[in-house]
Protein backbone atom coordinates (compact mmCIF):
# COMPACT_ATOMS: atom_id res chain seq x y z
CA UNK A 1 0.00 0.00 0.00
CA UNK A 2 1.47 3.31 -1.03
CA UNK A 3 1.82 6.10 1.49
CA UNK A 4 -0.85 8.11 -0.25
CA UNK A 5 -3.42 5.31 0.03
CA UNK A 6 -2.54 4.97 3.71
CA UNK A 7 -3.02 8.67 4.11
CA UNK A 8 -6.45 8.52 2.44
CA UNK A 9 -7.53 5.72 4.77
CA UNK A 10 -6.21 7.62 7.75
CA UNK A 11 -8.21 10.71 6.81
CA UNK A 12 -11.37 8.66 6.24
CA UNK A 13 -11.00 6.79 9.54
CA UNK A 14 -10.55 9.96 11.52
CA UNK A 15 -13.81 11.52 10.34
CA UNK A 16 -17.17 9.74 10.46
CA UNK A 17 -18.74 12.20 8.04
CA UNK A 18 -16.10 11.51 5.40
CA UNK A 19 -16.93 7.80 5.56
CA UNK A 20 -20.64 8.57 5.30
CA UNK A 21 -19.93 10.82 2.33
CA UNK A 22 -18.02 8.07 0.51
CA UNK A 23 -20.87 5.63 1.24
CA UNK A 24 -23.37 8.17 -0.03
CA UNK A 25 -21.33 8.70 -3.18
CA UNK A 26 -21.33 4.96 -3.92
CA UNK A 27 -25.11 4.87 -3.40
CA UNK A 28 -25.61 7.89 -5.66
CA UNK A 29 -23.42 6.38 -8.37
CA UNK A 30 -25.40 3.13 -8.18
CA UNK A 31 -28.71 4.98 -8.44
CA UNK A 32 -27.48 7.12 -11.30
CA UNK A 33 -26.53 4.03 -13.27
CA UNK A 34 -29.23 1.61 -12.19
CA UNK A 35 -31.96 3.82 -10.65
CA UNK A 36 -34.67 3.13 -13.23
CA UNK A 37 -33.95 -0.61 -13.09
CA UNK A 38 -34.18 -0.71 -9.29
CA UNK A 39 -37.50 1.17 -9.12
CA UNK A 40 -40.34 -1.12 -8.00
CA UNK A 41 -42.91 0.63 -10.22
CA UNK A 42 -42.94 2.46 -13.51
CA UNK A 43 -42.20 6.09 -12.62
CA UNK A 44 -44.72 7.41 -15.16
CA UNK A 45 -47.54 4.94 -14.61
CA UNK A 46 -50.61 6.59 -13.06
CA UNK A 47 -52.45 4.09 -10.90
CA UNK A 48 -56.12 5.13 -10.63
CA UNK A 49 -56.65 3.10 -7.48
CA UNK A 50 -53.62 4.57 -5.68
CA UNK A 51 -54.03 8.34 -5.65
CA UNK A 52 -52.28 10.20 -2.82
CA UNK A 53 -51.78 7.13 -0.64
CA UNK A 54 -49.67 7.75 2.47
CA UNK A 55 -46.41 5.80 2.83
CA UNK A 56 -46.98 2.06 3.29
CA UNK A 57 -45.12 -1.19 2.67
CA UNK A 58 -46.29 -1.30 -0.95
CA UNK A 59 -45.38 2.36 -1.52
CA UNK A 60 -42.54 3.31 0.89
CA UNK A 61 -42.83 7.00 0.06
CA UNK A 62 -46.53 7.06 -0.80
CA UNK A 63 -48.09 7.98 -4.14
CA UNK A 64 -48.67 11.39 -5.69
CA UNK A 65 -51.74 13.28 -6.92
CA UNK A 66 -52.07 11.21 -10.09
CA UNK A 67 -51.20 7.89 -8.48
CA UNK A 68 -47.52 7.53 -9.35
CA UNK A 69 -45.19 5.81 -6.90
CA UNK A 70 -43.07 8.54 -5.25
CA UNK A 71 -40.23 6.15 -4.32
CA UNK A 72 -39.80 4.98 -7.90
CA UNK A 73 -39.82 8.54 -9.14
CA UNK A 74 -37.13 9.54 -6.62
CA UNK A 75 -34.90 6.68 -7.80
CA UNK A 76 -35.60 7.57 -11.40
CA UNK A 77 -34.89 11.28 -10.84
CA UNK A 78 -31.40 10.62 -9.52
CA UNK A 79 -30.02 10.13 -13.02
CA UNK A 80 -31.44 13.40 -14.37
CA UNK A 81 -30.35 15.45 -11.35
CA UNK A 82 -26.88 13.99 -11.35
CA UNK A 83 -26.38 14.38 -15.09
CA UNK A 84 -27.46 18.03 -14.98
CA UNK A 85 -25.12 18.76 -12.07
CA UNK A 86 -22.19 16.72 -13.41
CA UNK A 87 -22.33 18.16 -16.90
CA UNK A 88 -22.72 21.72 -15.59
CA UNK A 89 -19.83 21.37 -13.17
CA UNK A 90 -17.76 19.53 -15.79
CA UNK A 91 -18.31 22.31 -18.32
CA UNK A 92 -17.41 25.10 -15.95
CA UNK A 93 -14.48 23.15 -14.53
CA UNK A 94 -12.89 22.63 -17.94
CA UNK A 95 -13.66 26.09 -19.31
CA UNK A 96 -12.94 27.92 -16.04
CA UNK A 97 -9.66 26.10 -15.42
CA UNK A 98 -8.40 26.76 -18.95
CA UNK A 99 -9.39 30.43 -18.93
CA UNK A 100 -8.00 30.92 -15.44
CA UNK A 101 -4.72 29.15 -16.23
CA UNK A 102 -4.06 31.14 -19.40
CA UNK A 103 -5.04 34.40 -17.70
CA UNK A 104 -2.75 33.65 -14.76
CA UNK A 105 0.16 32.57 -16.97
CA UNK A 106 0.08 35.21 -19.68
CA UNK A 107 -1.39 38.10 -17.67
CA UNK A 108 -1.67 41.46 -19.44
CA UNK A 109 -4.65 42.26 -21.65
CA UNK A 110 -6.23 38.80 -21.59
CA UNK A 111 -5.98 38.72 -17.82
CA UNK A 112 -7.69 42.07 -17.37
CA UNK A 113 -10.41 41.10 -19.85
CA UNK A 114 -11.04 37.89 -17.91
CA UNK A 115 -11.11 39.75 -14.59
CA UNK A 116 -13.70 42.15 -16.01
CA UNK A 117 -15.81 39.21 -17.20
CA UNK A 118 -15.65 37.58 -13.80
CA UNK A 119 -16.57 40.82 -12.05
CA UNK A 120 -19.52 41.29 -14.36
CA UNK A 121 -20.87 37.81 -13.71
CA UNK A 122 -20.38 38.29 -9.99
CA UNK A 123 -22.23 41.62 -10.13
CA UNK A 124 -25.52 39.69 -10.15
CA UNK A 125 -27.11 37.53 -7.54
CA UNK A 126 -26.10 34.26 -9.24
CA UNK A 127 -29.46 32.52 -9.05
CA UNK A 128 -31.10 35.55 -10.69
CA UNK A 129 -28.49 35.48 -13.45
CA UNK A 130 -29.20 31.78 -14.02
CA UNK A 131 -32.93 32.55 -14.24
CA UNK A 132 -32.27 35.30 -16.75
CA UNK A 133 -30.01 33.11 -18.87
CA UNK A 134 -32.54 30.28 -19.02
CA UNK A 135 -35.31 32.77 -19.76
CA UNK A 136 -33.48 34.26 -22.70
CA UNK A 137 -31.85 31.14 -24.15
CA UNK A 138 -35.09 29.20 -23.92
CA UNK A 139 -36.67 26.92 -21.41
CA UNK A 140 -34.90 23.57 -21.73
CA UNK A 141 -32.76 21.18 -19.71
CA UNK A 142 -29.69 21.92 -21.85
CA UNK A 143 -30.01 25.61 -21.07
CA UNK A 144 -30.22 24.87 -17.35
CA UNK A 145 -26.88 23.12 -17.71
CA UNK A 146 -25.37 26.10 -19.57
CA UNK A 147 -26.78 28.60 -17.06
CA UNK A 148 -25.43 26.64 -14.10
CA UNK A 149 -22.08 26.29 -15.85
CA UNK A 150 -21.85 30.02 -16.52
CA UNK A 151 -22.64 31.11 -12.98
CA UNK A 152 -20.04 28.68 -11.62
CA UNK A 153 -17.31 29.83 -14.02
CA UNK A 154 -15.99 32.67 -11.81
CA UNK A 155 -15.08 30.31 -8.96
CA UNK A 156 -12.87 28.10 -11.16
CA UNK A 157 -11.35 31.03 -13.00
CA UNK A 158 -10.42 32.75 -9.74
CA UNK A 159 -8.97 29.66 -8.07
CA UNK A 160 -6.91 28.58 -11.09
CA UNK A 161 -5.75 32.07 -11.89
CA UNK A 162 -4.54 32.63 -8.34
CA UNK A 163 -2.79 29.24 -8.13
CA UNK A 164 -1.12 29.63 -11.53
CA UNK A 165 0.14 33.15 -10.91
CA UNK A 166 1.63 32.02 -7.58
CA UNK A 167 3.61 29.23 -9.30
CA UNK A 168 4.32 31.11 -12.49
CA UNK A 169 7.69 32.47 -11.33
CA UNK A 170 8.84 29.41 -9.43
CA UNK A 171 12.01 27.59 -10.36
CA UNK A 172 10.46 24.49 -11.90
CA UNK A 173 8.60 26.68 -14.39
CA UNK A 174 11.83 28.53 -15.12
CA UNK A 175 13.63 25.23 -15.65
CA UNK A 176 10.89 24.05 -17.99
CA UNK A 177 11.14 27.31 -19.95
CA UNK A 178 14.90 26.98 -20.28
CA UNK A 179 14.53 23.43 -21.57
CA UNK A 180 12.51 24.91 -24.41
CA UNK A 181 8.94 24.14 -23.43
CA UNK A 182 6.25 26.33 -24.91
CA UNK A 183 3.75 28.29 -22.79
CA UNK A 184 0.77 25.99 -23.33
CA UNK A 185 2.97 22.95 -22.71
CA UNK A 186 4.13 24.40 -19.38
CA UNK A 187 0.53 25.13 -18.42
CA UNK A 188 -0.70 21.63 -19.26
CA UNK A 189 2.31 19.53 -18.23
CA UNK A 190 3.76 21.48 -15.31
CA UNK A 191 1.24 23.86 -13.79
CA UNK A 192 -2.20 22.24 -14.08
CA UNK A 193 -1.19 18.87 -12.55
CA UNK A 194 -0.04 20.80 -9.48
CA UNK A 195 -3.34 22.50 -8.91
CA UNK A 196 -5.67 19.59 -9.66
CA UNK A 197 -6.23 18.85 -5.94
CA UNK A 198 -7.41 22.41 -5.25
CA UNK A 199 -9.73 22.22 -8.23
CA UNK A 200 -11.14 18.86 -7.11
CA UNK A 201 -12.07 20.25 -3.69
CA UNK A 202 -13.71 23.20 -5.37
CA UNK A 203 -15.59 20.92 -7.78
CA UNK A 204 -16.94 18.71 -5.04
CA UNK A 205 -18.30 21.63 -3.03
CA UNK A 206 -19.57 23.07 -6.28
CA UNK A 207 -21.50 19.92 -7.24
CA UNK A 208 -23.78 20.25 -4.23
CA UNK A 209 -24.39 23.85 -5.09
CA UNK A 210 -25.06 23.01 -8.75
CA UNK A 211 -27.66 20.45 -7.73
CA UNK A 212 -29.40 22.98 -5.48
CA UNK A 213 -29.30 25.52 -8.25
CA UNK A 214 -30.73 23.21 -10.90
CA UNK A 215 -33.43 21.99 -8.51
CA UNK A 216 -34.27 25.61 -7.63
CA UNK A 217 -34.66 26.44 -11.33
CA UNK A 218 -36.97 23.52 -11.96
CA UNK A 219 -38.87 24.31 -8.77
CA UNK A 220 -39.88 27.65 -10.30
CA UNK A 221 -40.86 25.96 -13.55
CA UNK A 222 -37.73 26.35 -15.67
CA UNK A 223 -35.97 23.55 -17.47
CA UNK A 224 -37.35 20.14 -16.58
CA UNK A 225 -41.03 19.79 -17.49
CA UNK A 226 -43.61 17.46 -16.06
CA UNK A 227 -44.11 14.51 -16.21
CA UNK A 228 -40.31 14.07 -16.09
CA UNK A 229 -39.07 13.04 -12.67
CA UNK A 230 -36.62 15.47 -11.08
CA UNK A 231 -36.31 16.22 -7.38
CA UNK A 232 -36.93 19.97 -7.62
CA UNK A 233 -40.02 19.63 -9.76
CA UNK A 234 -41.34 16.82 -7.54
CA UNK A 235 -41.07 19.12 -4.52
CA UNK A 236 -42.84 21.82 -6.55
CA UNK A 237 -45.66 19.43 -7.47
CA UNK A 238 -46.09 18.34 -3.89
CA UNK A 239 -45.86 21.87 -2.48
CA UNK A 240 -49.54 22.68 -2.84
CA UNK A 241 -50.57 19.52 -0.97
CA UNK A 242 -48.41 20.26 2.07
CA UNK A 243 -50.94 22.69 3.53
CA UNK A 244 -53.66 20.04 3.29
CA UNK A 245 -51.53 17.40 4.99
CA UNK A 246 -50.28 15.22 2.09
CA UNK A 247 -46.70 15.79 3.13
CA UNK A 248 -45.04 12.76 1.58
CA UNK A 249 -45.26 13.98 -2.03
CA UNK A 250 -42.86 16.87 -1.40
CA UNK A 251 -41.00 15.63 1.67
CA UNK A 252 -39.23 12.56 0.28
CA UNK A 253 -37.81 14.14 -2.89
CA UNK A 254 -36.76 17.10 -0.75
CA UNK A 255 -34.91 14.78 1.61
CA UNK A 256 -33.24 13.04 -1.33
CA UNK A 257 -32.09 16.43 -2.57
CA UNK A 258 -30.82 17.46 0.84
CA UNK A 259 -28.90 14.24 1.46
CA UNK A 260 -27.25 14.44 -1.95
CA UNK A 261 -26.08 17.99 -1.38
CA UNK A 262 -24.95 17.09 2.13
CA UNK A 263 -22.99 14.15 0.72
CA UNK A 264 -21.11 16.39 -1.71
CA UNK A 265 -20.41 19.00 0.95
CA UNK A 266 -18.92 16.40 3.29
CA UNK A 267 -17.01 14.92 0.38
CA UNK A 268 -15.52 18.33 -0.35
CA UNK A 269 -14.44 18.61 3.29
CA UNK A 270 -12.96 15.12 3.16
CA UNK A 271 -11.02 15.91 -0.02
CA UNK A 272 -9.73 19.06 1.60
CA UNK A 273 -8.54 17.01 4.58
CA UNK A 274 -6.77 14.60 2.24
CA UNK A 275 -5.08 17.22 0.08
CA UNK A 276 -4.38 19.83 2.73
CA UNK A 277 -0.62 19.63 3.27
CA UNK A 278 -0.92 20.75 6.88
CA UNK A 279 -2.77 17.54 7.72
CA UNK A 280 -0.47 15.37 5.65
CA UNK A 281 2.38 15.53 8.18
Amino acid at each position, binding site marked *: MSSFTRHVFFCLRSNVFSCLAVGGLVLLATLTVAGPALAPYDAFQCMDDAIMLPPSLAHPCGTDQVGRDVFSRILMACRLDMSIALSAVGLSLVAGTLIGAFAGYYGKLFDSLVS*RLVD*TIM*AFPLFVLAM*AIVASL*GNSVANIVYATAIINLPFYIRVTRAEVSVRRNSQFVEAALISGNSGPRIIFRHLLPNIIPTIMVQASLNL*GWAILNAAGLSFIGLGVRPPDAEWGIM*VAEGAQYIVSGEWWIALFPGIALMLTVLCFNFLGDALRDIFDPRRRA
Partner: protein
Amino acid sequence: MLRFILRRILAAIPNLAGVLIITFLLARALPGDPATYLAGPSASLDAIEQIRQNLGLDKPLLEQFILYVSDMCRGDWGTSWATGLPVTEEIFTRLPASLELTFAGLFFAVAVALPMGILSATRPGSLIDHVCRIISTLGVSLPTFFTGLLLVFVFYYLLGWAPAPMGRLPLTAIEPDAVTGFLLIDTLLAGDFETFRAAVVQITLPALTLGIFALAPLARMTRAAMLQVLSADFIRTARTSNLPRWKIIFVYALRNAANPLFTTLGMVFSFTLGANVLVEKVFSWPGIGSFALEALLTSDYAAVQGFVLTMGILYVFVNLITDLLQVLNDPRIRMNI
Protein backbone atom coordinates in the same frame (compact mmCIF):
# COMPACT_ATOMS: atom_id res chain seq x y z
CA MET B 1 -13.53 60.36 3.82
CA LEU B 2 -15.77 62.22 1.38
CA ARG B 3 -13.16 61.76 -1.31
CA PHE B 4 -13.11 58.03 -0.64
CA ILE B 5 -16.90 57.79 -0.91
CA LEU B 6 -16.88 59.70 -4.18
CA ARG B 7 -14.11 57.55 -5.57
CA ARG B 8 -15.85 54.36 -4.51
CA ILE B 9 -19.08 55.53 -6.18
CA LEU B 10 -17.13 56.22 -9.37
CA ALA B 11 -15.63 52.75 -9.16
CA ALA B 12 -19.13 51.29 -9.08
CA ILE B 13 -19.86 52.71 -12.55
CA PRO B 14 -18.02 49.96 -14.50
CA ASN B 15 -20.00 47.40 -12.50
CA LEU B 16 -23.25 49.12 -13.40
CA ALA B 17 -22.11 49.21 -17.03
CA GLY B 18 -21.43 45.47 -16.84
CA VAL B 19 -24.91 44.90 -15.47
CA LEU B 20 -26.40 46.92 -18.33
CA ILE B 21 -24.35 45.07 -20.97
CA ILE B 22 -25.43 41.69 -19.64
CA THR B 23 -29.12 42.58 -19.48
CA PHE B 24 -28.90 44.06 -22.97
CA LEU B 25 -27.19 40.98 -24.39
CA LEU B 26 -29.69 38.70 -22.67
CA ALA B 27 -32.53 40.71 -24.15
CA ARG B 28 -30.95 40.31 -27.62
CA ALA B 29 -30.43 36.60 -27.15
CA LEU B 30 -34.16 36.05 -26.76
CA PRO B 31 -35.46 33.32 -29.00
CA GLY B 32 -37.44 34.63 -31.94
CA ASP B 33 -37.97 38.14 -33.19
CA PRO B 34 -39.56 40.50 -30.64
CA ALA B 35 -41.19 42.48 -33.43
CA THR B 36 -42.97 39.42 -34.84
CA TYR B 37 -43.99 38.47 -31.32
CA LEU B 38 -45.36 41.95 -30.55
CA ALA B 39 -47.20 42.27 -33.85
CA GLY B 40 -49.15 39.07 -33.30
CA PRO B 41 -49.74 36.12 -35.62
CA SER B 42 -51.94 37.89 -38.19
CA ALA B 43 -49.72 40.94 -38.78
CA SER B 44 -48.54 41.83 -42.26
CA LEU B 45 -44.86 42.07 -43.12
CA ASP B 46 -45.19 45.86 -43.35
CA ALA B 47 -46.60 46.04 -39.83
CA ILE B 48 -43.75 43.92 -38.48
CA GLU B 49 -41.24 46.13 -40.25
CA GLN B 50 -42.95 49.19 -38.77
CA ILE B 51 -42.69 47.76 -35.26
CA ARG B 52 -39.10 46.82 -35.84
CA GLN B 53 -38.34 50.42 -36.76
CA ASN B 54 -40.25 51.71 -33.74
CA LEU B 55 -38.27 49.45 -31.46
CA GLY B 56 -35.05 50.46 -33.16
CA LEU B 57 -34.27 46.83 -34.04
CA ASP B 58 -33.16 47.78 -37.56
CA LYS B 59 -30.26 49.86 -36.25
CA PRO B 60 -26.71 48.56 -35.64
CA LEU B 61 -26.13 46.80 -32.32
CA LEU B 62 -24.00 49.57 -30.80
CA GLU B 63 -26.62 52.20 -31.56
CA GLN B 64 -29.29 49.94 -30.08
CA PHE B 65 -27.20 49.61 -26.95
CA ILE B 66 -26.82 53.37 -26.60
CA LEU B 67 -30.57 53.79 -27.09
CA TYR B 68 -31.17 51.07 -24.51
CA VAL B 69 -28.86 52.67 -21.94
CA SER B 70 -30.42 56.09 -22.39
CA ASP B 71 -33.90 54.57 -22.01
CA MET B 72 -32.87 52.81 -18.83
CA CYS B 73 -31.25 55.95 -17.43
CA ARG B 74 -34.36 58.00 -18.13
CA GLY B 75 -36.33 55.43 -16.15
CA ASP B 76 -38.13 54.06 -19.20
CA TRP B 77 -37.94 50.32 -18.55
CA GLY B 78 -40.74 49.41 -20.89
CA THR B 79 -44.26 48.21 -20.19
CA SER B 80 -45.25 44.92 -18.69
CA TRP B 81 -47.40 43.07 -21.24
CA ALA B 82 -49.20 41.14 -18.57
CA THR B 83 -50.42 44.10 -16.51
CA GLY B 84 -50.11 46.98 -18.98
CA LEU B 85 -48.31 49.10 -16.36
CA PRO B 86 -44.78 50.52 -16.66
CA VAL B 87 -42.21 48.03 -15.36
CA THR B 88 -40.64 50.63 -13.06
CA GLU B 89 -43.99 51.21 -11.36
CA GLU B 90 -44.58 47.48 -10.88
CA ILE B 91 -41.12 47.02 -9.42
CA PHE B 92 -41.32 50.03 -7.11
CA THR B 93 -44.60 48.89 -5.57
CA ARG B 94 -43.24 45.37 -5.01
CA LEU B 95 -39.65 46.03 -4.05
CA PRO B 96 -40.38 46.98 -0.39
CA ALA B 97 -42.01 43.60 0.22
CA SER B 98 -38.90 41.79 -1.03
CA LEU B 99 -36.51 44.05 0.83
CA GLU B 100 -38.48 43.74 4.07
CA LEU B 101 -38.28 39.95 3.77
CA THR B 102 -34.56 40.01 2.92
CA PHE B 103 -33.71 42.31 5.82
CA ALA B 104 -35.79 40.26 8.26
CA GLY B 105 -34.06 37.07 7.09
CA LEU B 106 -30.60 38.61 7.33
CA PHE B 107 -31.40 40.02 10.76
CA PHE B 108 -32.31 36.55 11.99
CA ALA B 109 -29.21 35.05 10.36
CA VAL B 110 -26.87 37.59 11.94
CA ALA B 111 -28.58 37.30 15.33
CA VAL B 112 -27.97 33.54 15.34
CA ALA B 113 -24.71 33.28 13.40
CA LEU B 114 -22.72 35.81 15.44
CA PRO B 115 -23.21 34.12 18.83
CA MET B 116 -22.70 30.72 17.16
CA GLY B 117 -19.45 31.79 15.54
CA ILE B 118 -18.15 33.50 18.69
CA LEU B 119 -19.04 30.51 20.86
CA SER B 120 -17.22 28.09 18.53
CA ALA B 121 -14.21 30.37 18.15
CA THR B 122 -13.76 30.79 21.90
CA ARG B 123 -14.10 27.05 22.47
CA PRO B 124 -12.52 25.41 19.39
CA GLY B 125 -12.85 21.64 19.32
CA SER B 126 -15.56 21.61 21.99
CA LEU B 127 -19.00 20.07 21.71
CA ILE B 128 -20.54 23.48 20.94
CA ASP B 129 -18.05 23.92 18.11
CA HIS B 130 -19.03 20.59 16.57
CA VAL B 131 -22.75 21.26 16.94
CA CYS B 132 -22.34 24.67 15.28
CA ARG B 133 -20.40 23.12 12.42
CA ILE B 134 -23.08 20.48 11.85
CA ILE B 135 -25.85 23.08 11.95
CA SER B 136 -24.10 25.27 9.41
CA THR B 137 -23.34 22.34 7.07
CA LEU B 138 -27.00 21.31 7.26
CA GLY B 139 -27.99 24.91 6.60
CA VAL B 140 -26.12 25.12 3.27
CA SER B 141 -27.36 21.70 2.21
CA LEU B 142 -31.05 22.45 2.63
CA PRO B 143 -32.71 23.75 -0.53
CA THR B 144 -34.44 27.01 0.50
CA PHE B 145 -37.76 26.06 -1.04
CA PHE B 146 -37.70 22.78 0.84
CA THR B 147 -36.89 24.45 4.20
CA GLY B 148 -39.84 26.76 3.59
CA LEU B 149 -42.24 23.90 2.87
CA LEU B 150 -40.96 21.98 5.87
CA LEU B 151 -41.55 24.97 8.15
CA VAL B 152 -45.04 25.44 6.70
CA PHE B 153 -45.83 21.77 7.29
CA VAL B 154 -44.62 21.76 10.88
CA PHE B 155 -45.73 25.19 12.09
CA TYR B 156 -48.90 25.66 10.04
CA TYR B 157 -50.29 22.19 9.40
CA LEU B 158 -49.05 20.17 12.39
CA LEU B 159 -48.82 22.73 15.19
CA GLY B 160 -51.14 25.45 13.89
CA TRP B 161 -48.88 28.16 15.30
CA ALA B 162 -48.23 29.99 12.05
CA PRO B 163 -50.77 31.51 9.64
CA ALA B 164 -51.38 30.13 6.15
CA PRO B 165 -48.44 30.91 3.83
CA MET B 166 -50.41 33.54 1.92
CA GLY B 167 -48.66 36.87 1.54
CA ARG B 168 -47.79 39.67 3.90
CA LEU B 169 -51.07 40.17 5.76
CA PRO B 170 -54.12 38.05 6.54
CA LEU B 171 -57.16 38.85 4.40
CA THR B 172 -59.00 40.44 7.31
CA ALA B 173 -56.25 42.95 8.12
CA ILE B 174 -56.41 46.53 6.91
CA GLU B 175 -53.31 47.61 5.08
CA PRO B 176 -51.75 50.80 6.48
CA ASP B 177 -50.99 53.81 4.29
CA ALA B 178 -47.78 53.17 2.41
CA VAL B 179 -45.08 55.48 3.74
CA THR B 180 -41.98 53.34 3.46
CA GLY B 181 -43.69 50.31 1.94
CA PHE B 182 -42.26 48.23 4.79
CA LEU B 183 -45.34 46.91 6.57
CA LEU B 184 -43.50 46.47 9.86
CA ILE B 185 -42.66 50.19 9.86
CA ASP B 186 -45.84 51.53 8.28
CA THR B 187 -48.12 49.81 10.79
CA LEU B 188 -46.14 51.28 13.66
CA LEU B 189 -46.26 54.73 12.08
CA ALA B 190 -50.03 54.39 11.79
CA GLY B 191 -50.16 53.22 15.41
CA ASP B 192 -51.98 50.04 14.34
CA PHE B 193 -50.45 47.47 16.67
CA GLU B 194 -52.88 44.71 15.80
CA THR B 195 -51.89 44.80 12.12
CA PHE B 196 -48.24 45.09 13.16
CA ARG B 197 -48.55 41.84 15.09
CA ALA B 198 -50.28 40.19 12.16
CA ALA B 199 -47.47 41.32 9.85
CA VAL B 200 -44.81 40.01 12.25
CA VAL B 201 -46.53 36.63 12.47
CA GLN B 202 -46.84 36.52 8.68
CA ILE B 203 -43.18 37.35 7.98
CA THR B 204 -41.71 34.99 10.61
CA LEU B 205 -41.65 31.74 8.60
CA PRO B 206 -40.37 33.16 5.30
CA ALA B 207 -37.73 35.17 7.17
CA LEU B 208 -36.67 32.05 9.06
CA THR B 209 -36.39 30.17 5.77
CA LEU B 210 -34.10 32.80 4.30
CA GLY B 211 -32.23 33.10 7.59
CA ILE B 212 -31.42 29.39 7.86
CA PHE B 213 -29.96 29.55 4.38
CA ALA B 214 -27.88 32.66 5.13
CA LEU B 215 -26.72 31.45 8.53
CA ALA B 216 -24.02 29.00 7.51
CA PRO B 217 -21.57 31.24 5.66
CA LEU B 218 -21.92 33.93 8.32
CA ALA B 219 -21.30 31.52 11.20
CA ARG B 220 -18.30 29.98 9.43
CA MET B 221 -16.77 33.35 8.67
CA THR B 222 -17.37 34.61 12.22
CA ARG B 223 -15.63 31.54 13.58
CA ALA B 224 -12.66 31.81 11.24
CA ALA B 225 -12.21 35.57 11.68
CA MET B 226 -12.58 35.40 15.46
CA LEU B 227 -10.13 32.51 15.74
CA GLN B 228 -7.56 34.48 13.82
CA VAL B 229 -8.05 37.67 15.81
CA LEU B 230 -8.10 35.89 19.19
CA SER B 231 -4.62 34.51 18.56
CA ALA B 232 -3.23 38.00 17.83
CA ASP B 233 -0.71 39.72 20.07
CA PHE B 234 -2.95 42.57 21.10
CA ILE B 235 -5.49 40.11 22.50
CA ARG B 236 -2.74 38.51 24.57
CA THR B 237 -1.81 41.96 25.82
CA ALA B 238 -5.44 42.63 26.71
CA ARG B 239 -5.59 39.32 28.59
CA THR B 240 -2.43 39.98 30.54
CA SER B 241 -3.76 43.44 31.38
CA ASN B 242 -6.58 41.56 33.08
CA LEU B 243 -9.35 43.14 31.05
CA PRO B 244 -12.76 41.48 31.50
CA ARG B 245 -13.38 38.60 29.12
CA TRP B 246 -16.51 40.09 27.59
CA LYS B 247 -14.66 43.30 26.84
CA ILE B 248 -11.84 41.45 25.11
CA ILE B 249 -14.25 39.47 22.95
CA PHE B 250 -16.93 42.01 22.13
CA VAL B 251 -14.93 45.23 22.06
CA TYR B 252 -11.43 44.30 20.92
CA ALA B 253 -11.77 41.04 19.02
CA LEU B 254 -15.15 41.53 17.37
CA ARG B 255 -14.35 44.92 15.92
CA ASN B 256 -11.16 43.56 14.42
CA ALA B 257 -12.97 40.53 13.05
CA ALA B 258 -15.76 42.66 11.60
CA ASN B 259 -14.27 43.51 8.21
CA PRO B 260 -14.27 40.03 6.69
CA LEU B 261 -17.75 39.72 8.18
CA PHE B 262 -18.97 42.75 6.25
CA THR B 263 -17.63 41.21 3.03
CA THR B 264 -19.40 37.94 3.79
CA LEU B 265 -22.57 39.82 4.66
CA GLY B 266 -22.50 41.46 1.24
CA MET B 267 -22.07 38.07 -0.43
CA VAL B 268 -24.83 36.53 1.67
CA PHE B 269 -27.09 39.43 0.76
CA SER B 270 -26.63 38.47 -2.88
CA PHE B 271 -27.49 34.82 -2.11
CA THR B 272 -30.61 35.88 -0.26
CA LEU B 273 -31.71 38.12 -3.11
CA GLY B 274 -31.59 35.05 -5.36
CA ALA B 275 -33.19 32.77 -2.79
CA ASN B 276 -35.94 35.35 -2.35
CA VAL B 277 -37.47 34.22 -5.62
CA LEU B 278 -37.92 30.69 -4.26
CA VAL B 279 -39.13 31.77 -0.82
CA GLU B 280 -41.60 34.24 -2.32
CA LYS B 281 -43.07 31.45 -4.39
CA VAL B 282 -43.47 29.14 -1.40
CA PHE B 283 -45.11 31.80 0.79
CA SER B 284 -47.04 33.64 -1.98
CA TRP B 285 -45.09 36.74 -0.97
CA PRO B 286 -46.02 39.67 -3.26
CA GLY B 287 -42.44 40.85 -3.93
CA ILE B 288 -40.43 41.34 -7.11
CA GLY B 289 -39.43 37.67 -7.09
CA SER B 290 -42.95 36.43 -7.60
CA PHE B 291 -43.48 39.24 -10.12
CA ALA B 292 -40.47 37.95 -12.07
CA LEU B 293 -41.76 34.38 -11.90
CA GLU B 294 -45.13 35.34 -13.38
CA ALA B 295 -43.29 37.33 -16.02
CA LEU B 296 -41.03 34.37 -16.84
CA LEU B 297 -43.96 32.03 -17.32
CA THR B 298 -45.85 34.49 -19.55
CA SER B 299 -42.70 35.50 -21.50
CA ASP B 300 -43.09 39.09 -20.31
CA TYR B 301 -39.57 40.07 -21.29
CA ALA B 302 -39.60 43.74 -20.30
CA ALA B 303 -40.63 42.70 -16.80
CA VAL B 304 -37.96 39.98 -16.53
CA GLN B 305 -35.33 42.40 -17.77
CA GLY B 306 -36.47 45.00 -15.26
CA PHE B 307 -36.21 42.46 -12.49
CA VAL B 308 -32.69 41.38 -13.45
CA LEU B 309 -31.61 44.99 -13.78
CA THR B 310 -33.06 45.86 -10.37
CA MET B 311 -31.25 42.95 -8.78
CA GLY B 312 -27.96 43.92 -10.44
CA ILE B 313 -28.29 47.55 -9.34
CA LEU B 314 -29.27 46.53 -5.81
CA TYR B 315 -26.23 44.32 -5.55
CA VAL B 316 -23.89 47.05 -6.77
CA PHE B 317 -25.28 49.25 -4.00
CA VAL B 318 -24.90 46.52 -1.41
CA ASN B 319 -21.23 46.19 -2.34
CA LEU B 320 -20.83 49.93 -2.10
CA ILE B 321 -22.33 49.93 1.39
CA THR B 322 -20.21 47.03 2.64
CA ASP B 323 -17.09 48.84 1.43
CA LEU B 324 -18.12 52.01 3.24
CA LEU B 325 -18.87 50.04 6.41
CA GLN B 326 -15.38 48.57 6.30
CA VAL B 327 -13.83 52.00 5.99
CA LEU B 328 -15.92 53.31 8.87
CA ASN B 329 -14.96 50.35 11.00
CA ASP B 330 -11.26 50.22 10.23
CA PRO B 331 -9.30 53.49 10.51
CA ARG B 332 -6.27 51.83 8.89
CA ILE B 333 -8.02 51.68 5.52
CA ARG B 334 -8.95 55.34 5.88
CA MET B 335 -5.30 56.30 6.37
CA ASN B 336 -4.26 54.62 3.14
CA ILE B 337 -6.70 56.50 0.99
